Every structure is written in structure tokens, then in C-alpha cells.
């Protein structure tokens, strides 16, 4: 009885994971279609309702930027208008593609990160995006007098590096999380076998395997110990086998603040920050060059950083949502000892695969996050 119920539960969780994957695939699909059939058929995805409104707002703000930069040339107070619009633009703009929302969110889910860390990652990557934009335009256009094509080519190189880093990040997560999943699967199986033996007494053939895993979880008391047993073991494995810089996935209560600040603390997210934040926002580059042409480069720099601040707020909000959803999933999962943990491991693996997939799609051009025009 008990085994049957748990299997059904696992199936439902698996279903939920599949739903997530399908929804994400659907989200990425339109651009993939656009790429696959260059002629005629594809059109911009339906943008009505909230999405349409967001797009309209960000277009509206973006177009207002040019007027404000011009006005700031003669009227100092227009500068503050520029700052305000840049901030609003950043907030709405980040709701569009790019800016690593999906990558950061998946990373947070896969790596069992806290919402605080999610917010820090979002702000750091947005800041890095602004810095890259300013550095590119500052060096290329201001110092070297480079053309738009040269800047575009530079951005493309950075883009490739950034996407490759995302793939690597995902691959590393997949490796670590995949092993965690297999290990939990093992434990759950041996636990189930223990139950099977107790309930039905016809699982004699499982005896050998069961003995092999005796050290993981005493099978007789497995039922009584439930999750606690599973957790402590997963935790031990972590310290035995994993890199120092990966959170223990068996950890039920999230990392303690001391852990975050400890060795491998904040710098652990650095790879994610760099992977996501390296590629500058095209809009920022265009605004910077435009400001430069108006003789107001510094106003453009200010605008870029404020835009980054707005972007960070949106990305952080979405990242927080992802962390909250994961926490909720964990609460549900923790009600079913072994299978619940297994489901969480499965979700982490799925999220790691998503990070890889996003990187791969971006790298191969099947998913296009930004284009600079016609160069």
C-alpha cells in the first residue's frame, strides 16, 4: 500500500517537472521557429495583455531617452528626467529576453540557493552588464574612435564567451546534481526494498543489493526515520565527495548565514555572475554612443548604470519567485520521505539541464536574445 502511494506521488512530481519543462520549451520555441524558417511564416509572438503592455512601456521609455539626452545638453534639469526614464526603462526592459533571468532563476533552483543570494546575483550581474557596456563604448568609441561594426563584432565575441560560460555552468551543475540524484535514487530504492521486505516478504532477490546499501540507511528502521535518515546521509556524502563550493543538497533548512560568509561563500556565485553579466545590453550601448555623439558621454554612463539598477530589480524579483517556488516544492516534498527528496533532486537536475539548454540555444543561435541592428 505504502509503496504504491509513494510511487504515485513520484509519478505526479515527475508530471509536474515535465509540465515545467514543456512550458519552458514553449517559451523558448518562437525564436527557434523564427530561426528554422527564415522565410515568411514566423511572426513576432503574440504580445497582448500584460506582455504587450510591458513591451509598449519599454519601447515608450526607450524612445523617450533620445529626446532627454538632447534636452540635457541645454537644460540641466533634463538630466534628472533622463535618470528617471532610464530607471523605468531598465525595469521594463529586463522583462524582455536576455539579462539572464532564466539562467539565474534556473541556477538558483538547481543550486538550492537562498533568495538573498538570488538578489545579490541579480544585482551583481546587472552591474557587470552596465560596466561592460561602458567599458566597450569607452574604449572602442571614445578612445579608439571605432565604428559601430567594430563594436558589434566585439559584443559578438563577448556574447559567445558568455554563452559558452553558461553552458559550462550548466554542465557543472548537471554533473554535481546528476550524481546527487542517482545517489538519492539508490537510497530510495534500497529503502523501498526494505519496506517491500517488511510488508510483503517476497523481495528476497533484492537481498544482495540491500545489503550493499546497509550503510546508507538501516532498512529496518528506515520507515521510522524517514527523511531524517535520508538527509543526514546525503549531507555526509556531500562532505565526502563534493567540491567545497557546492551546497549540500541534502540540507533541509537552507544554508546558514555563516555558511554563506564562509570559505567559498559569496564568490561561489561569481561564475554565474560572469556568465550572465558579461554580455552588455544592446540598448545601453546604443544609448551610450548616442550620448557620446551629443557630447554627453557621462550622462550616458549615468543612464546606463541607472538602467542596470532597474534591470536588477526586475531580475531579482523573478529570481526571488523562483526561489520561493522551490521552497514551496520542498515543503511539499518533505512530506514524503524518500520520494520527496528524490523529486527535489530531480527538479535540481532539471534546472541544471535548463541552464545548459539556455546556454546551448543561445550559443548556436537558436535562441536570440539581442541583435544590434544590421551590421
Amino acid at each position, binding site marked *: 500500500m505504502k509503496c504504491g502511494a509513494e510511487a504515485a506521488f513520484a509519478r505526479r512530481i515527475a508530471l509536474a517537472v515535465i509540465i515545467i519543462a514543456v512550458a519552458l520549451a514553449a517559451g523558448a520555441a518562437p525564436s527557434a521557429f523564427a530561426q528554422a524558417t527564415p522565410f515568411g511564416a514566423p511572426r513576432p509572438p503574440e504580445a497582448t495583455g500584460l506582455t504587450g503592455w510591458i513591451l509598449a512601456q519599454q519601447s515608450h521609455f526607450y524612445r523617450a531617452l533620445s529626446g532627454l539626452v538632447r534636452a540635457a545638453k541645454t537644460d540641466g534639469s533634463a538630466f534628472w528626467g533622463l535618470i528617471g526614464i532610464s530607471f523605468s526603462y531598465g525595469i521594463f526592459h529586463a522583462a524582455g529576453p536576455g539579462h539572464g533571468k532564466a539562467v539565474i532563476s534556473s541556477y538558483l533552483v538547481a543550486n538550492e540557493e537562498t533568495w538573498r543570494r538570488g538578489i545579490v546575483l541579480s544585482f551583481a550581474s546587472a552591474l557587470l552588464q552596465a560596466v561592460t557596456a561602458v567599458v566597450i563604448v569607452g574604449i572602442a568609441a571614445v578612445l579608439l574612435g571605432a565604428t559601430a561594426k567594430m563594436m558589434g563584432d566585439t559584443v559578438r565575441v563577448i556574447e559567445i564567451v558568455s554563452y559558452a560560460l553558461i553552458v559550462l555552468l550548466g554542465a557543472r551543475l548537471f554533473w554535481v546534481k546528476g550524481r546527487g540524484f542517482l545517489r538519492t535514487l539508490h537510497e530510495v530504492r534500497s529503502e523501498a526494498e526494505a519496506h517491500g521486505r517488511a510488508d510483503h516478504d517476497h523481495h528476497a532477490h533484492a537481498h544482495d543489493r540491500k545489503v550493499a546499501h546497509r550503510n546508507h540507511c538501516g532498512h529496518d528502521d528506515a520507515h521510522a526515520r524517514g527523511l531524517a535518515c535520508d538527509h543526514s546521509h546525503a549531507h555526509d556524502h556531500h562532505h565526502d565527495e563534493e567540491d567545497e563550493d557546492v551546497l549540500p543538497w541534502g540540507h533541509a533548512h537552507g544554508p546558514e548565514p555563516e555558511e554563506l560568509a564562509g570559505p567559498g561563500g559569496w564568490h561561489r556565485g561569481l561564475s554565474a555572475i560572469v556568465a550572465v553579466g558579461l554580455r552588455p545590453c544592446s540598448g545601453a550601448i546604443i544609448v551610450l554612443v548616442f550620448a557620446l555623439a551629443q557630447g554627453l558621454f557621462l550622462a550616458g554612463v549615468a543612464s546606463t548604470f541607472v538602467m542596470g539598477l532597474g534591470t536588477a530589480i526586475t531580475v531579482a524579483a523573478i529570481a526571488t519567485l523562483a526561489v520561493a517556488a522551490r521552497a514551496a516544492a520542498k515543503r511539499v516534498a518533505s512530506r514524503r520521505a524518500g520520494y520527496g527528496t528524490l523529486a527535489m533532486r530531480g527538479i535540481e537536475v532539471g534546472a541544471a539541464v535548463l541552464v545548459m539548454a539556455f546556454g546551448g540555444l543561445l550559443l548556436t543561435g537558436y535562441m*536570440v536574445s539581442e541583435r544590434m*541592428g544590421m551590421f
Partner: protein
Amino acid sequence: MLYHFVLLMTVLACGLAVNERAQAHPHVWVTMAEELLYAPDGSVTGVRNAWTFDDMFSAYATQGLPQKTKGQFTRDELQSLAKVNVESLKEYAYFTYARIDGKRHRDAFTDPIDYYLDYDPKETVLTLHFTLPFKTPVKAKDLQVEIYDPEFFIDFGFAEKDPVRLVGAPTPCTFSMQKPNDGNFPSSLRLDQAFQTSEANAGMGANFANKISVTCP
């Protein structure tokens, strides 16, 4: 409880998905004036495009280009940029799609000719002129030309004044324009409702962005 879980995860997934789906965020705005060129025998030989870019993109595009007079660019000074533009546009099929007597044509155009860039020093905007000749001149009762960026990084819109002209067309020919209507900004987001339907249905009642339809009885 399980349903809550499924619900939450679905919300999370949709959140991510919507954000990747909302891929349209243009950085370039183009105001276009289109001319359909007719041969004496009444066939359409090509499409002449005049695309004016927004001021920010124009500033970006002209960054670093040598100029004799500050604030001005001659056609010669812009010619290398024009070349880069039309060559890059090839990858995107010039964002120009033709449908002849209801049938979509792949690669209907040859490489562009007569291309150049103009700079308007007053508005500080660039206009890209280029002509797309049809591979074979089109003699059709019904010709449709659509111009849009499927990925919407470029927001195309018709010019307010003389957006479409038929040059040398036989008198009975008439044209109509379909703008992305409905008044919602950005206008080009009006969609092809037939995106998911079959090719056969694609032309029926579809609400295409920036479509020019010419009918010659």
C-alpha cells in the same frame, strides 16, 4: 497540497517562459516608404525600399565614420556602411516577403541594387535606400509584400506621408495597405493569427504586420 505544489511550479515555469517568450524588444525603429516598380508590360520588377532609422540608431550606426564636415555625412562617406547594411540584410531575407497570387515565394528577390545611405543633418537620421529586384518579374493579379522583422529587434512602420507608391503601374492596379492596427503601441506587434495554422489557411483573414497588397484585374 500536491496541487499547490504543481501550481507553484507551473507558475514558476510560466514566469520563466513568458520572460523568454517576450522576446520582442526592438532597439531599432524603421520608418519605411516603399515603391513597387513596374515594367512597361505591367509586370512588377522589384521593390524599392527607403528605410529611415531612428535618431539613436542613426547615431550608433555612424559612430566612428570619417566625415569632412562635422554633423554631416555625404553619400560617399556612407557608402561602405550601406554596403555592410545590405550585405547583413541578406541573412534576414531583407525582412521583405512576397506572396504572389496567394502563394508564398521563397527567395523571390536577387541581391539588392542601387543601394546608398542618406543622412539628414536636421533630423540626424539615416535613410537606407535599396532596390530588391524580383528574380523573375511578377505578373500577378494579386501581389502582397510584407515587411517586418520576425524577431522584432527592428520595429518597422510605414511612413505617414506616401508610404507606398506604385511606379509605372498600369492604371487599373490598386493597392491597399494593412498596418498593424488597433492603435496599441508598438504597433508592429499586431500578429498573424494564422501562425499556427496550415499554410493553406495562412492568407485568410490573417492580420499581418505592414502588408502591401496590389491587385491588378
